[in-house]
């Protein structure tokens, strides 16, 4: 297994990022219940191996464009966790000064072009970032994260065609958690998702999204293909969604047994720990230490977000235009 040839530092980084996403999302879920987080969140817990398996290959100058379920992608791409938490709380210290919220977190300096409140919103934007790279000769790649819901949007189909005819350095990462909102993909997704790439002559792979190493390996090939100028790749990543579609979703379209089995048998963190333990690459004590550090970091983020001021009302009308 090639992934197991990662350095100890890379393995620790991968684990830390996945754990950070999990603890962040579980905590956001808990804090939502307190009523202090405005609006809505769409949690990524369960899907960590996908974001991290892909983003570990990316440089800061590479770009990603994300989905409603964007917190995991942000963390994997290196966004500041304190700033993210403050943003979700709607505070002035938020990464978007409290103007974006959970669905629009972005940090362009980290190559994170935004979570997106529109299903299918990201693929054209990622193609644009890839176009910039291609025209300026930068050798950067971009990743369009989308879901099994987004795969049915015209924007995704159009962007895949555009990327293939222009040989753009872009990866379409389709995170298939089996549900577009509350509707199972079996009701609304026709055929095999990978066939949509095949029809365009685009490279593709189907990957078990619970297995960090499988995602990492497939993403590595896709990133290298893009950097070599050989064009786009579609990755169909099957991954579990631990929570409902949004924070108040009763999630009663899945049985309790299904959900319990999903958490028991398809947990990327458990799988990762087992694999590195069997291969004697990282010890439990090291990983437990990471867990404790992550927990402290999230505690700090929540505390700081709670303590932060609301944005000044004077900022209501700023930053619409560069100049008017």
């Amino acid at each position, binding site marked *: 297994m090639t992934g197991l040839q990662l350095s100890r530092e890379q393995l620790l980084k991968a684990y830390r990022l996945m754990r950070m996403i999990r603890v962040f999302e579980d905590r956001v879920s808990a804090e939502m219940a307190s009523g202090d987080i405005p609006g809505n969140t769409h949690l990524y817990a369960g899907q960590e191996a996908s974001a991290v398996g892909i983003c570990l290959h990316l440089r800061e100058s590479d770009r990603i464009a994300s989905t409603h379920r964007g917190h995991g992608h942000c963390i994997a791409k290196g966004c500041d966790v304190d700033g993210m938490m403050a943003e979700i709380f709607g505070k002035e210290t938020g990464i978007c000064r409290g103007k974006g919220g959970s669905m629009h977190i972005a940090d362009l300096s980290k190559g994170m072009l935004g979570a*997106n409140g529109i299903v299918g919103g990201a693929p*054209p934007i990622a193609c644009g970032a890839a176009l910039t790279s291609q025209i*300026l000769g930068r050798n950067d790649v971009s990743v369009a994260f989308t879901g099994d819901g987004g795969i049915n949007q015209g924007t995704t189909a159009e962007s895949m065609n555009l990327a293939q005819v222009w040989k753009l350095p872009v990866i379409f990462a389709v995170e298939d958690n089996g549900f577009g909102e509350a509707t199972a993909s079996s009701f609304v997704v026709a055929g095999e998702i990978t066939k949509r790439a095949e029809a365009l002559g685009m490279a593709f792979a189907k990957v078990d999204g619970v297995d960090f190493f499988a995602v990492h390996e497939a993403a590595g090939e896709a990133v290298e293909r893009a950097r070599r100028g050989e064009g786009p790749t579609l990755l169909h990543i099957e991954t579990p969604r631990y929570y409902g579609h949004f924070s108040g979703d009763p999630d009663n379209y899945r049985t309790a047994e299904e959900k319990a089995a999903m958490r028991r048998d398809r947990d990327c963190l458990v799988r990762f720990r087992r694999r590195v333990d069997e291969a004697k690459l990282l010890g439990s004590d090291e990983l437990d230490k990471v867990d404790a550090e992550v927990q402290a970091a999230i505690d700090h983020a929540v505390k700081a977000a709670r303590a932060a001021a609301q944005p000044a009302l004077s900022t209501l009308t700023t930053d619409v235009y560069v100049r008017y």
Partner: protein
Amino acid sequence: MAQKSFRQALNEALNHEMRRDPNVIVLGEDVAGGSGASGQKDAWGGAFGVTKGLLGAYGPARVRDTPISESAFVGAAAGAAMTGLRPVVEIMFVDFLGVCFDQIFNQAAKFRYMFGGKAVTPLVIRATYGAGTRSASQHSQALYPIFTHVPGLKVVIPSSPYDAKGLLIQAIRDNDPVIFLENKVLYDTVGEVPDGAYTVPFGEAHIVREGGDATIVAIGRMVHFAREAAETLAAEGIDCTVLDPRTTSPLDEDTIIEMTEETGRVVIVDEANPRCGMAADISSIIAENAFGALKAPIMKVTAPHTPVPYAPNLEAAYIPDAKRIADAVRKAVAFQRS
């Protein structure tokens, strides 16, 4: 100064900016046009010939024919703009922006605000608008009020070749998304256009002519009809100011209010549909800020609230003309408070 067509003025603007700044690219359907066909080079230069010659000068990487899929390439242009390029997208007819509203309204227009001021999106979307070519409902609309309504977008509607060049150069240098609308009936009109690069600032109305009896505010092609009406009225002893806002976002409210205060009578001419349109909007600005100066009700001359019809007689009746404008001014001048 050289006489040049509206089309040529736009072409010169693109040429100046592509030469000056290697980050400027042109995307759209047929902007090269047939360039990949055997022996063909730069066959079309866009459906209206505005981008002719650019492919030869700047090559296929920077002058790109796209698939007919506006969501993908308008969205890609937005993504390219936020990552370092300055794309100029050509959309054949503004009507087609309907298929990619999301990428304009929810993405490009919002990046700066929702990302806390940290994004710039130097994107220009050029599109033709307007009735008068017997192209009917899906190729003739004047949709600028829709874009004007959306915060984050700037909207430019030039009426002369001089303004077309200066405003397009300004648009390309601007760091916000700009919807740049060209009335296709005006492409062959000519006017004085300097050879060099120059800019016309946004948000500064052009006072086309001055007269003390009434103010006609007219947008895009309507400026020509307004001038014609003003000449007819001058022969009758009614002197009109004609004001061309040139951009509807930002809108030069100050000059509109100032001219209202000078003449006390206002006629607003707008090729778009009347409900929630520019005429309604400008009317409300005047009513709110210069009510005391008004000597007559504000008159609006607009298209009817219908799609654009096909039959030549119906289409001619659809578009506001000099006669309707002159009639509205006469009515305003004749108005007596009871």
